[in-house]
């Protein structure tokens, strides 16, 4: 717990907050100020917008601990401000609200517009309102209400921007950050299907015989070693594998624990690994299949063809942007085939995901891209 001190709606207040608590939760749960609404918790919808040090900010992506000693104004604290009074009357007159869910955030943004941009025209008002979504009004009433306050003359505000104070360099020794144990992963029922997954493939010629390369691929432990981010817990003789895959995409990290099945066909020197798993903490699911085949390619050479199909669901799928995926997937598939080549030729590969990018990152990202595209299509409908 961190002791938090804030000036909320003009009153000095202290409370205990877990360091992970965002400001909206702190205000709603600890201070019982439930007028601050939460919509997306991603910073996109604007419902949680409040005034921090006199400036609008998203309380859903502002850490409470980062606001130590700040001045906080929520919808409950706008009563004594003349600008807010004018906006309130104007919102009422121009039918700028219906259900009211967006209104606390709309008022914080409207306050910012009329105090910071006294010359704003309708186009500018709309531009500034772009970060506050309203499902009811169609915005016309909100724009009209703000325009009316601007044209009727904005009263002098009681709430004013306060300069952000930097911490004194001689601040008391900051507590050290605790190191946590490895992120927990747990079994989540695999429900993801590969339908609609993304397929990528890579071929690589390796200077070993096809038989040699095939023997290499039949060693599950070695195949896993070539997949950066993969770890095997148990393997049964019939090819059932329990293990995990860790992916890092920038600051995002997910560790998928689950099961895979490996099938080899000696006659055609081809095989597949099919697996699925879940990341308990982010409640994301992944399913994927890697198909591989070895063919002779002239004197002392073999061709390894690898194809990957992936599908991702859950928050990780919703979050990232689609097109990033292909780049990383391709990079990782390349890494996998290169690692297999190195191993087959007697070399060693690093066990760690290179630069934080596990092969699985690729997979996840590719699934992510697919889902995002579908999400966008849904939006357009």
């Amino acid at each position: 717990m961190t002791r938090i001190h804030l000036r909320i709606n003009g009153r000095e207040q202290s409370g205990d907050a877990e360091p992970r608590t965002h400001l909206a939760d702190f205000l709603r749960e600890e201070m019982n100020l439930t007028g601050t609404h939460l919509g997306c918790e991603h910073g996109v919808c604007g419902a949680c917008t409040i005034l921090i040090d006199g400036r609008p900010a998203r309380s859903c992506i502002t850490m409470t601990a980062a606001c130590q000693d700040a001045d906080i104004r929520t919808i409950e604290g706008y009563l004594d401000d003349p600008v807010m009074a004018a906006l309130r009357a104007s919102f009422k007159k121009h039918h700028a609200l219906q259900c009211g869910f967006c209104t606390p955030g709309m008022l914080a943004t409207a306050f910012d517009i009329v105090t910071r941009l006294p010359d704003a025209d309708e186009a500018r008002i709309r531009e500034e309102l772009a970060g506050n979504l309203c499902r009811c009004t169609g915005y016309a009433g909100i724009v009209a209400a703000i325009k009316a306050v601007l044209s009727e003359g904005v009263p002098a505000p009681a709430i004013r921007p306060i300069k952000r104070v930097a911490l004194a360099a001689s601040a008391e020794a900051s507590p050290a950050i605790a190191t946590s144990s490895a992120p927990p992963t747990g079994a989540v029922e695999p429900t993801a299907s590969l339908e609609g997954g993304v397929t990528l493939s890579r071929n690589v010629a390796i200077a070993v015989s096809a038989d040699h390369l095939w023997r290499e691929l039949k060693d599950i432990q070695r195949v896993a070693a070539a997949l950066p981010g993969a770890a095997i817990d148990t393997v049964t003789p019939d090819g059932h594998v329990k293990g995990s895959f860790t992916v890092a995409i920038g600051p995002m990290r997910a560790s998928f624990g689950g099961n895979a099945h490996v099938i080899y066909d000696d006659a055609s020197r081809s095989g597949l690994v099919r697996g699925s798993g879940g990341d308990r903490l982010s409640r994301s699911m992944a399913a994927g299949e890697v198909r591989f085949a070895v063919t002779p390619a002239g004197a002392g050479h073999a061709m390894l063809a690898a194809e990957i199909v992936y599908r991702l669901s859950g928050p990780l799928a919703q979050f990232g942007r689609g097109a990033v995926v292909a780049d990383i997937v391709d990079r990782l598939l390349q890494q996998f085939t290169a690692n297999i080549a190195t191993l087959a030729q007697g070399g060693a590969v690093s066990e760690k995901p290179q630069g934080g990018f596990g092969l699985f990152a690729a997979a996840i990202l590719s699934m992510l891209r697919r889902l995002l595209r579908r999400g966008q299509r849904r939006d357009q409908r």
Partner: protein
Amino acid sequence: MKAASLSYAAAASATDAVRMLSSPEAKVIAGGQSLGPILNLRLARPSGLVDVSRAADLRAVTETPDAVHYGAAVTHAEMEDGVVPDATPGWMQTVARRIAYRAVRNRGTIGGSLAHADPAADWVNALTALDASVVLTRSDAERTVKLEQFFTGPFATVLAADEIIARVIVPRRTLQARWAYWKFCRKTGEFAKASAAVLLDPARNQTRILLGAIERPPVLLPDAEAIMTGSITPARAVACAAPELDAASAAMHAAALTRALAMVAA
């Protein structure tokens, strides 16, 4: 969803921050405007956060005859409002105003944007085109890296785990130079779907044309002069520099480049 359990500490200086980062699972947080959503979704689960948003030296701006050095924790809104000096004739101010929404700009920082390295982010692209560098600090050393060499992939940079961006150095530009930054997005405040920037600075003998938001680090186009004179068309330049783009995306990037070129010509 809510962030997973973590500890939190506010750094009073860059040195302080670097010391607190020594734990491998700790992560820097500045404005939290990119990390916040990721924490809420538990896609990132650092054991601890080191808050640099109020570190005095990371909030400072210093000027030299040749450049402006921005502390990494300067916010987009401070740039937009002209609270900090603009190294260019108002170009950075214009870029800042188009980033996200005011409520996000009030907390989001220039250093956070660069460290996050989203290929579609505005500072990532505009500051690379402006030939900016970052000063990276760790406990025993400091190094200066040009942005061209800083980004290594989507959301990936050369930053080591115990290293932070201390400052961003932006070379000064005068009114003799010309500049255009064009960002395509479907909705105001969104990340770019395609972007292009053009810088013509005769005083420094620089012509830089950049293609951004290509889901990998931005590319500075070779043959900038030929693109300027029109002997290489924008469509051709895009096809050569980013052959992986699908037709619709390539067309959008070519249009962004065409518009940026028209803006500097105007």
